[in-house]
């Protein structure tokens, strides 16, 4: 059996494509903001552009769960996602209160997604330890 099944290959392709698109849009948005100083609706559009591929990656994960025909692999992915969600909520809630009392610096909201992706790694480690 190949290392990745069909659903995993499609997921990997989507995530790779969206990651490249994210890098491209982020660099483009930074350059335009630095050089052209856009304002109004254009600024809003440019600022939101790098977020779209990240949202796309989250959607790709959801799509993978729908397309994965192996119920065990699907269950493991769902468990990892739940661990990641708990991890993200724990970190952001803790950080938020510490920030409220001026003990930690302000963190932008998009860190929640980054922490969630990190939580997937934590979930993977938890599962590996359980084996």
């Amino acid at each position, binding site marked *: *059996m190949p290392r990745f099944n069909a659903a995993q290959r499609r997921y990997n392709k989507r995530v790779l494509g969206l990651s490249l698109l994210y890098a491209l849009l982020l660099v483009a948005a930074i350059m335009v903001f630095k050089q052209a100083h856009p304002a109004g609706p254009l600024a809003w559009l440019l600022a939101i552009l790098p977020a779209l591929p990240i949202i796309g990656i989250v959607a790709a994960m959801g799509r993978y769960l729908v397309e994965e*025909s*192996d*119920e*065990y*692999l699907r*269950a493991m992915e769902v468990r990892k996602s739940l661990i990641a969600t708990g991890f993200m909520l724990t970190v952001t809630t803790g950080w938020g209160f510490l920030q409220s009392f001026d003990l930690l610096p302000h963190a932008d909201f998009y860190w929640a997604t980054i922490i969630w992706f990190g939580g997937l790694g934590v979930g993977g480690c938890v599962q590996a330890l*359980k*084996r």
Partner: protein
Amino acid sequence: MRNRLKILRAERDWSQGDLADRLEVSRQSVNAIETGRYDPSLPLAFRIAKLFDLPVEMIFLSNE
């Protein structure tokens, strides 16, 4: 839930990979079911039973 998957597989001289191919699931799935880390859904349990030509209750046994 306990199961006799490993014994049934050994009787047929199948590897975990052979069984996984026949069931169209991953080898990890077969391993997780055999070692009791994962209880399959009813549809998969019935597919396993059909493959071994046995009733489900002859393969999967209650812990009680």
